[in-house]
């Protein structure tokens, strides 16, 4: 293809002429250093290119070569437990080749082409297959069977397929299509990142993604295949929430995109995840995780690409029939990267300097989530859940990125600076957060947790809302002015807040709570409330009731091991005993 010539360099944006043969969104190599870039605008023979690496030292007249294909990722065995940069270059290989600092123009393969994987076929000669069908698998890690699928442009009959050890570029099968052409199938595929991978049907999500975080699982659950966002000012614990979800969410594959955030945080994930064990399988969490790291000081254009790279990898595993969760921390940095490119292109700005298409890009991104029946002859069900952190300036929710995100996501976990300031973590504000999946997953919860779970939730939430109303009064006239019943409400609300919603991410037991344990814990708190209400109505002083010794036990429920749930249930008996003693004392 014809080589172009640079006529303008302005930061990560360059303009080259003589590019009439290139297509929009083609990948290009810039200058002799072979920096990677992408064409984002064409005017006549002039192409505007965003460059994914530092552009210092590039000048007018330097050559630009188009690769004639859009920005794509490589898909195949070897993805799990890797750490990639924003355009799928493995950071460990870069470190091996270039040392501790990121230098430019490095070309490393995304997937190792030399490793031999043991391929086990799942179809046989003569089977009819089409794009998306599974033909076999490779045991990639203890946790993940990496299913090999027919590429989307192939349809026909399996001509031959063999078990054995192959590299990702060796053929494992042959398919004969309608025209009697034999097509070799290798394990490695590529897919352009900006194009969503196809599926047959999208369905409504009906199953919750359990996260082990009580406030989320109880009040604001996200469904498998749903979308959620976590906005909050700095220091409110966005990243800890995202890390907790990446650790404990019951998805089968996790893709974690560190987009424009701190370098040390990525290092933390890299060092911590191999140590942490999956609560179900007992295997290291890293064996189901892919990390994309584009820290804040890495080139800004690659930050823009990193969320697309991440979601394409996630979709690929969804197509195998897995439930996949993608965490993006933070989408604000992604939006800022868009704003920067837009500014350099001298586009007319929208709100706060963000491009007018900000809302469209954000909704396109979140719409790639969903529960789907994947394409192919055989139906498989996979889901992709997307959770985006948003970092609005000053925690101001009127920020355009927050607003555009709230228009598309179904779950809103509002992090409050006030709660964080009081060291209540996770600082998810129960009064302003919401979920729209309550009805979708109600059936599932009643079947799998308990019939009265949805009812209990409503009851607990009502008490919390009542507390916020009563707080106004207390502030004006003091706690003593409240009726005994309302005093009890205040106390129960405090118990829900401190003994239930507050959860210590750094405590070995408290960090994860199963839905069974959550149910029993909340049940105990509400049981105490109901029984206490009876005593209050019998004119027993509320001060005595709320100072019963058993309250201490309720406060320590969260530290009881999952295996000893009975200890939580037994608290109910103690409540009855102690209340009976109290009642006897006053009725004599």
């Amino acid at each position: 293809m014809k080589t172009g010539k640079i006529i303008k360099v302005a930061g990560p944006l360059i303009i080259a002429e003589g590019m009439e043969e290139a297509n929009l969104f083609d990948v290009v190599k810039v200058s002799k250093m072979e920096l990677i870039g992408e064409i984002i605008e064409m005017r006549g023979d002039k192409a505007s290119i965003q460059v994914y690496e530092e552009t210092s030292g590039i000048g007018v007249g330097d050559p630009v070569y188009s690769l004639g294909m859009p920005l794509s990722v490589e898909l195949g065995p070897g993805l799990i437990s890797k750490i990639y940069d924003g355009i799928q270059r493995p950071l460990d290989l870069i470190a091996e080749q270039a040392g501790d600092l990121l230098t430019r123009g490095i070309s490393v393969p995304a997937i190792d082409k030399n490793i031999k994987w043991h391929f086990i076929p799942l179809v046989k000669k003569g089977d009819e297959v089409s794009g998306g069908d599974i033909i076999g698998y490779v045991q990639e890690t203890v946790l993940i069977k990496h299913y090999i699928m027919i590429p989307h442009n192939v349809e026909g009959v399996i001509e031959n397929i063999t078990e054995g050890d192959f590299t990702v570029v060796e053929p494992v099968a042959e398919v004969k299509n309608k025209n009697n052409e034999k097509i070799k199938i290798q394990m490695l595929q590529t897919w352009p990142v900006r194009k969503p991978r196809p599926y047959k049907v999208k369905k409504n999500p009906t199953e919750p993604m359990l996260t082990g975080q009580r406030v989320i699982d109880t009040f604001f659950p996200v469904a498998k295949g749903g979308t959620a966002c976590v906005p909050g000012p700095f220091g409110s614990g966005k990243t800890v929430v995202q890390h907790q979800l990446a650790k404990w969410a019951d998805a089968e594959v996790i893709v974690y995109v560190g987009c424009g955030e701190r370098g040390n945080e990525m290092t933390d994930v890299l060092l911590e995840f191999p140590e942490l064990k999956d609560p179900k399988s007992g295997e290291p969490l890293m064996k189901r995780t892919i990390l994309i790291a584009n820290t804040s000081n890495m080139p800004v254009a690659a930050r823009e690409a990193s969320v697309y790279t991440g979601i394409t990898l996630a979709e690929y595993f969804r197509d195998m029939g897995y439930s996949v969760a993608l965490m993006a921390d933070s989408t604000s940095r992604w939006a800022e990267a868009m704003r920067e490119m837009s500014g350099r292109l001298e586009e007319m700005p929208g709100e706060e300097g963000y491009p007018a298409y900000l809302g469209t890009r954000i909704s396109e991104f979140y719409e790639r989530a969903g529960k789907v029946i994947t394409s192919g002859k055989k139906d498989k069900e996979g889901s992709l859940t997307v959770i985006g952190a948003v970092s609005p300036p000053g925690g101001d929710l009127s920020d355009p990125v927050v607003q555009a995100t709230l228009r598309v996501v179904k779950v809103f976990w509002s992090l409050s600076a006030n709660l964080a300031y009081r060291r209540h973590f996770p600082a998810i504000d129960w009064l302003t957060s919401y979920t729209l999946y309550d009805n979708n997953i109600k059936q599932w919860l009643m079947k799998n947790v308990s019939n009265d779970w949805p009812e209990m939730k409503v009851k607990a939430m009502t008490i919390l809302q009542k507390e916020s109303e009563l707080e106004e009064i207390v502030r004006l006239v003091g706690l003593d002015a409240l009726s005994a019943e309302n005093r009890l409400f205040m106390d129960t609300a405090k118990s829900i807040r401190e003994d239930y919603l507050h959860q210590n991410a750094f405590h070995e037991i408290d960090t994860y709570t199963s839905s069974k344990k959550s149910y029993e814990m909340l049940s105990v708190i509400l049981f105490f409330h109901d029984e206490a209400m009876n005593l209050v109505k019998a004119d027993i002083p509320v001060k005595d009731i709320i100072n019963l010794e058993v309250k201490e036990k309720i406060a320590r429920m969260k530290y009881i091991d999952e295996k000893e749930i009975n200890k939580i249930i037994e608290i109910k008996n103690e409540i009855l005993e102690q209340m009976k003693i109290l009642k006897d004392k006053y009725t004599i």
Partner: protein
Amino acid sequence: MIKEYKTISEIVGPLMLVKNVENVKYEELVEIELQTGEIRNGKVLEVNKDMALVQLFEGARGINIGQSKVRFLGKGVEIALSEDMLGRVFDGQGRPIDGKEKILPEITKDINGSPINPFSRDYPNEFIQTGISTIDGLNTLVRGQKLPIFSGSGLPHNRMAAQIARQAKVLEKEGEPITKFAVVFAAMGITFEEAQFFIEDFQKTGAIERTVLFINLANDPAIERISTPRLALTTAEYLAFDKGMHVLVILTDMTNYCEALREISAARQEVPGRRGYPGYLYTDLSTIYERAGRIKGKEGSITQIPILTMPEDDKTHPIPDLTGYITEGQIVFSRSLHRKGIYPPVDVLQSLSRLKDKGIGKGKTREDHADVFNQLFACYAAGLEARELEAILGQAALSDLDKIYYKFAEEFEKRYINQGEYENRTIFETLNMSWELFKLIPKVELKRIRDAYLEKYLK
């Protein structure tokens, strides 16, 4: 052969447009020879066909469009480095201003540096003792961390920064070699008196011998400030990763840096973001702050303490806001504590060190540190609540327990937060002082401390 151009076509603010140039590269270093023979520097911000847009480092005053000559030097902005820089004072552009001879460079490096590969980073977890209780005890600093001070005009952030530079050290373990320690100090747009305070303080205590200073004063060209922190950090990287030293970098005042950035952005007529600051302020700041850290297999480290004055003490102003999103915590100063005469006036509840959990505890500080931290925090918060209650409803409204916490908050501020400028408390002194304060509180209320520690330390 370097070509010389006499084709300056316009100069607007800190920007200069040169026409009919050839082979000019983005971010190339530019030399301008004035009609008087004076040499000034700049760098290429944009190349467009045969035109180059140049940012002037020293301002445009006195440049004659017709007679000045421009040379493009074919390399980026670099700094010459050597270990002899320790003990020396440079201007905001890296030229010696202490009257001593020029530095004989061992190596030259591009001042923009390169990002550290996240894969090669080592997690910061070594405790640094600053001798200041509010930092060591409550907002623990670790090697490789970036922990800014959010201050306000008229607050004693400079005194505290000097105290940290003077006292910071790592607890030495027996048998381990003592590592070399250095301070790199970058002043951006501070006054002569402030700069003099630091220089004199370093000289008085002998710290100057292990310090490199870059000084850009308030009356020096604002544009020069863009490169000052980068020069300092390049020097720090050289000392840390080439020479194996533990380097503490103090950057003051980041607010002036950001304003210089805004000035250039405005001159380029870019679309402004919040409060007129450019949309890429976050990215730009991150290329400074993210240069802190440790690298696997290398001995040295870079710890950063940037200082910024919050305009109107407003934490949501873009500068502190974006800084807080990048740095690993913040030390926030409180004007009301300062008015009470408490030094350092650290607002304990608003301050935070994100990396403290990995740097404290057994083998690093002391086993009881985490529990003591949580308990102090809870007690002080309860004390402040009691104080608030007292302000509204009067002493009579306080319960007995409230009164105890009220007293605790007073004592905590007076004894724990408050300390002398030359008082260097060891971490053990700080922890023991916490236990002294806990004596004010009934033992049953000390819920956050493990029973074993209560028995051992509450004597």
